[in-house]
Every structure is written in C-alpha cells, then in structure tokens.
C-alpha cells in the first residue's frame, strides 16, 4: 500500500490521543501517577547593591518527599535568576524555554538581557495557558536599569515588589520579611534575612524542608550559594554500614565510559588543493 503523497509536518498543539485510554484506565480503577510538586518556600528581596533570591530544596510527590535536595533557583541569564514553585515540570520547562528565548534575543540585540524582558516572556506564556501551567515564580536580576524583583502567578499576573515570597511556605516567610525588612540592607544582612525567611518556611510548612539555597545578584556579578545552610543534617548513620545480606559473587566486570576518550595523534600534513 503506497503512503500518502505528501508527508504533512506534525501540527503543533496538545495531542489528545491518550485521553481515551486514560479514561478507560480510570474507570477500571487505576489511579494515575501524582505529579511532582515543589511544595516550597521561595523568596526574593532587593538590597543595597542588587537582588537576593532564596529557596528551600524539598520536592514532594503527594505526601512523599521525592527529592531532598533539588534546585529551585533556575538560571535565566547571566544576570537574571528565577525561583520556581508549583509543579516542578512546569517551572523547569517554562524557565528553560524563556532562558533559551532570552539567549536568542541577546544574540539578536547584542545586549545584556533585561529583567522586564524575561518578565514579559514568562507572563505571556503563562497567560496563554490560562493558569494550567502551574508555575508561580519569583524573578530577580540586575540589568542596566537597576535591580528588579517580580512575582509571576500561574494565571499570568505579575507584581513588582521590594520583597516577595511564594509557595506553600510563603506566609511563614512573609511574616519574617514584614517584621524585619528595611530598605538599603547590606549584603550580609540581606542574606541573613533571606535565610531566616526560608528557615521559617522549612520548619513551619510541611511542603518545604531540607536545605537553604541562596543566590546573590549584583551589577556584573552573581553568586549562587548552593546549600548555603544545611539545617537538617542526617544525624544517625548506622555503624555497620550497608552490605548485601548474602554473599554476592562477582562474575564479570565491564566498565563503559560515558564520555569517549579521544586521543590526539600527531597532526598529519595540511590539506592541499
């Protein structure tokens, strides 16, 4: 049987093919997989020289902690970072996508990216999906117009604030900010306040936990302090260690290097026409 004369390029948009199958499975009693959410406390504040972002590191799948040390502060541009709360896949995908768009824009314009550009790209995307892309973001950065901090909600609305918190632990963190924030904080005071706010979320909110990540962005310089504070160390370690219960006999060992080892042989003669 001959194929169709013209192979149409795949149309964009959501493919609903599997929905019938999912419906049938649901009727038979199979509950679908729950999605990974980052319960989360994320915060940002503007200090004297720029912006400080903070986040906890717990990722949950329903009631289970699926990742005890995930990264919630995503790279957008060398001078812009974005914390994400909500469905982990959505925050990763949307920040990756906008980060690529920003890089293309940098190539087009030949200039450093501006925070408002990232804001508009994110806002447009989230509004188009009418809240179904469940990503609540705290976007911060320093560009030629100064330091900026914005919050972006899943439905596409944005706020510009001097200090902001998002996620399930946002109320606990906001309580810390509202009592202790003032304008013109120094770098150390700012980091201290961010750490306090995140810790308040970690200890008082069930959806947040583990460690504190901090990111400090100033004009022309950024510091990503991964696991800046570890207030939940693993204290009990079994002295016996982990061993397999019965003796395991090694039959064969095969090591496959993931990166090819390339050996450079002496260069041959130059190519001649």
């Amino acid at each position, binding site marked *: 049987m001959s194929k169709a004369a013209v192979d149409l390029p795949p149309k964009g948009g959501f493919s609903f093919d599997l929905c019938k199958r999912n419906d049938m499975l649901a009727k038979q009693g199979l509950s679908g997989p729950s999605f990974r959410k980052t319960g989360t406390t994320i915060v940002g504040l503007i200090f004297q020289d720029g912006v400080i972002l903070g986040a906890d590191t717990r990722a949950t799948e329903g009631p289970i902690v699926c990742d005890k040390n995930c990264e919630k502060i995503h790279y957008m541009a060398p001078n812009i970072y974005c914390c994400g709360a*909500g469905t982990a896949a959505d925050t990763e995908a949307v920040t990756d996508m906008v980060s690529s768009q920003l890089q293309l824009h940098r190539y087009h314009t030949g200039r450093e990216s501006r925070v408002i550009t990232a804001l508009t790209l994110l806002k447009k995307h989230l509004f188009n999906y009418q809240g179904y892309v469940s990503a609540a973001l705290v976007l911060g950065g320093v560009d030629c117009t100064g330091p900026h901090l914005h919050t972006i*909600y*899943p*439905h596409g*609305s*944005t*706020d510009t*604030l001097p200090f902001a918190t998002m996620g399930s632990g*946002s*109320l606990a963190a906001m309580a810390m900010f509202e009592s202790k924030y003032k304008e013109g904080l120094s770098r150390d005071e700012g980091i201290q306040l961010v750490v306090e706010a995140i810790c308040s979320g970690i200890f008082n909110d069930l959806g947040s936990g583990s460690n504190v990540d901090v990111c400090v962005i100033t004009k022309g310089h950024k510091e990503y302090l991964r696991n800046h504070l570890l207030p939940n160390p693993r204290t009990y370690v079994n002295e016996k260690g982990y061993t397999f219960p019965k003796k395991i006999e090694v039959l064969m060992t095969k090591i496959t290097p993931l990166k090819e080892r390339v050996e450079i042989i002496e260069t041959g003669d130059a190519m001649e026409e």
Partner: protein
Amino acid sequence: MDCLNLNEPHSMGTTIIGVTYDGGVVLGADSRTSTGVYVANRASDKITQLTDNVYVCRSGSAADSQIVSDYVRYFLHQHTIQLGQPATVKVAANLVRLLAYNNKNMLQTGLIVGGWDKYEGGKIYGVPLGGTILEQPFAIGGSGSSYLYGFFDQAWKEGMTKEEAESLVVKAVSLAIARDGASGGVVRTVTINADGVTKNFYPGDTLPLWHEEIPAQNSLLDILSAPSPEPMSM
C-alpha cells in the same frame, strides 16, 4: 478545611474611582491584590498608564486586566505614531472596550479609563464586565464600589476644583476600604489635566478614621508592651 488556597487566581478585590473636575480628571484606587483570602500584594498600583495623557484603573482578575492594558498600550502607541499627535481619551477607551467586548467570555475585568485631551478636556469612561462603554462625569468600580453609590449620589457635584475632586476621591476610597474586606492598603491617585500628570500616595495611617475604626499602630508590640491601666479606685 482548605481556607487558604494559594493557587486561586489573583484578583484585585478593589475600589476604583474616576472623577471629572473643572479642567481634568482624578483617578483613585486602593492597593490590595488578593489570592483567595491571602493578600498577595498590599501595595499594588492599579492605575496604569496607557499614554502620557490617558490612564486606566484596573479591577477584577489581575492577569486579565494587566494583559488588556498591555495590549491597549501597544495599540495606542501605534495609533499615536500613525496619527502624529497624542491619542484622545475616547479612542483609548474604545480600544479597551473592543478588547473587553470581543473577549467577554474569557475576560473578567472592569476598567475605568480617564484622561485629558485638547479636544474634549477631562473625560471618564467606564468599561465594566461585558464590554459596555459609558461616558460618565464620575465612575466607580470594583467590589468596594457597592458601598459608594449612595455616597457619590450625595457628595458629587459639577464644576469642582482640583483639590475638591482629589479630596473627594481619597475620602471615597477610604470609606470603601473601611467596609470592604477585599480593599485595603494605601490610596493612590493620579490627576490628569492640561499641565500634565500628578501622582499622589496616601499611606493607610494618613486616611481619616470612620465609625468604630481603630487608629493604626506601627506594631502590635507597642500595644502589648503598653503599661497595664491603673486599678480603679472608688
């Protein structure tokens, strides 16, 4: 009991007001943006610029109103370039109305467009849910406006001065804040006339106190650490 759902769409509970006076308009709004019962932003700016001489007060869904005002700002910018002179308030209001009416099934936002142009002077246009356009000497909108209809019927008059109009707007917004849970924060006003645009900001503790309102305190700790009253002596 899930009374605090932070995934609720952002809505601006809101009180927004637009008032014409002799020579221009005064736009006023509160500053509370709520997600369900949580106040997501206590100092938001609901009066957004469309052009140098036209501003819009936003209410309803925060996302919808932000997107509509972004689109209208973009269209007005193009229109200004093509026209070669500043856009009129009527054109701005009609662009808002076209978006609101043609997308009425998907949008949930009530807007008040106000500004000054050299042909008609100060003008206020209300564009409520559904996309009607109505030119009015004064317009009120948002959840807090329910408490202001009677007040304006009594207090508004033709030919006010700029100061009278501004104090009327501030008084009205503070009355609505006192009674509407979804309005609060500070009062922002924007005055537009032939001389240009003036923006004002009235922090919560400078607003007049109404029936049974308690004066603002900087911190609860001040009240708690106040000395206990002297025991009564007969």
